[in-house]
């Protein structure tokens, strides 16, 4: 019988890939029920806005038709929601109910590898969900190709950002019901106050700085620039914000989850 050589444990990228591969296999196991809704959601949105709400909003918003305005925002909100769910309810179930992490941590990987892999997976889901919205919106010529093709990358960054945040929240959660506070108290308001439904510039002066602090605001600005092919220097600040947010929040998420995973 050949025995293992301990010097040959997988290199970092293979360990991260292992975590990603595990999640991908579980996700694609129910391809129809998991892969169909991301395409259905923007269709429902189109019907709702196109046939209903759109009629009442005749003024252009942010220089474009309202359906284009809202459509661009949808490219990143979808990434936010999928990532937030994956790394809150999903992570908690793997952590406390299924004990999947316990088993994974007996294989050659560290808690850091596990959590970073989790974040990359959530980013990938963000990318896929963004792409699904892009497919539908470009099919209806609401977003023009080829400009829009970069949008899923912002979906990826948004996914990683909300993965870090949701993992940090998860590290505090004692029962799965606590996530209700997170979604009603934080994720839902973000949807309204980050420039997705209406421009942040229209908010009263005292709220505007708050909107600048909200992570999604920066994703929205990036994705709008991509959709309109109109790039401004402030986008560099948005990218910097996202990078710093991921690193700082991710650092604390790993630190706190480590205490739960390694006693």
């Amino acid at each position, binding site marked *: *019988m050949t025995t*293992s050589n*301990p010097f040959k444990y*997988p290199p970092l990228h293979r360990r991260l890939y*292992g975590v990603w591969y*595990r999640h991908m296999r579980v996700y694609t*196991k129910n391809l129809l029920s998991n892969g169909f809704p991301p395409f259905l959601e923007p269709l429902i949105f189109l019907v709702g806005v196109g046939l209903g709400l759109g009629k009442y909003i005749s003024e252009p918003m942010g220089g474009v038709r309202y359906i284009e305005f809202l459509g661009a925002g949808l490219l990143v909100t979808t990434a936010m929601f999928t990532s937030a769910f994956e790394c809150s309810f999903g992570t908690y179930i793997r952590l406390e109910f299924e004990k999947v992490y316990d088993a*994974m941590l007996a294989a*050659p990987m*560290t808690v850091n590898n596990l959590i970073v892999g989790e974040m990359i997976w959530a980013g990938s889901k963000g990318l896929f969900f963004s792409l699904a919205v892009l497919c539908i919106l470009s099919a209806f010529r609401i977003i023009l190709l080829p400009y829009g093709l970069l949008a899923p990358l912002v979906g990826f960054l948004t996914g990683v950002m909300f993965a870090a945040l949701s993992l940090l929240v998860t590290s505090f959660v004692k029962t799965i019901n606590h996530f209700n506070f997170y979604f009603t108290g934080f994720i839902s308001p973000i949807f309204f106050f980050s420039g997705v439904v209406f421009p942040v510039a229209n908010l009263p002066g005292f709220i505007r700085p708050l909107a600048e602090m909200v992570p999604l605001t920066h994703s929205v600005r990036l994705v709008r620039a991509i959709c309109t092919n109109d790039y401004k220097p402030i986008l560099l600040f948005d990218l910097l914000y996202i990078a710093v947010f991921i690193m700082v929040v991710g650092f604390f998420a790993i630190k706190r989850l480590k205490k739960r995973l390694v006693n």
Partner: protein
Amino acid sequence: MAKAVITVRNISKSFGRIQAVRDLSFSVESGSCFGFLGPNGAGKTTVMKMIYGKCTRDESCGGQMDIFGYDPAKNELAIKYLSGVVQQENNLDDELNVIQNLMIYSRFYNTPVKAAKERIEYLLDFLELSEKADSKIKELSGGMKRRLVIARALLNFPRLLILDEPTTGLDPQVRHLIWEKIRQLQKQETTVLLTTHYMEEAFQLCDRLLIMHKGQKVMEGTPEDLLEENIEKYVLEVLDADPVRQVHQDTPLNRVRVDHTADVTRYYANDMDVLKQLAASFLKAGNYLIRQTNLEDVFLKATGRRLNDNQ
């Protein structure tokens, strides 16, 4: 004597104010099966977890651990790569089928796909699960799930196999099958660490046993030595307690040790004839049992008969 592949010196572990492991030392020889016995909450699982890095030992106590030349505090990945771990829970991926569960873990070990498939085929055959290769996890019985978790632990040809209560809750057939497989692995020079509540399992499999109680080592040795050194050869068990108490107060019992609990009185002696005489002197046939002492008697002597807070 074979080389020691695991050496643990004076390790301790506390969770807040609870001290789960206190100043524990032991060493395990290459290719042997080393068993941990102890009541629930004795610290057995914590010791296992400290070995593969799921738990960190208390730094303040200055203990040392050497697992195949590595310290879990520094070389967690190397230790995980050379070990296979069967945890207490069957933490399988319910969404996936049997083969997919194993394929995912092959990725964790970075095994090339072709080699992984061959290994999986071999292991399913080894643990008699080949027919279930494409089954969903929910369709498996408890014994099959357990065997699958063991197969998963064997994917990377482990030099060290860590089994935390591998047969708890399984029927005798499955239990014996698992014992047989563990023995076969031992013949292939796999070192095995085992925790169990089944004394027979410990007796059947382990070359050396360590009995823990409240985080401390109470006894250590080969099963035979533990029996020989710590308990008399025979025991007379009497169920009906009251009349016995009266009798043993006025009988000379200098060659018999008496252990009295609420319902049962046990008389231990190395000479069976003494017990026979004793029984004949005051008991009716059928009211008592004389048997050889076993590991369970040693265990209960070492850890007490009463439940502690953690049980």
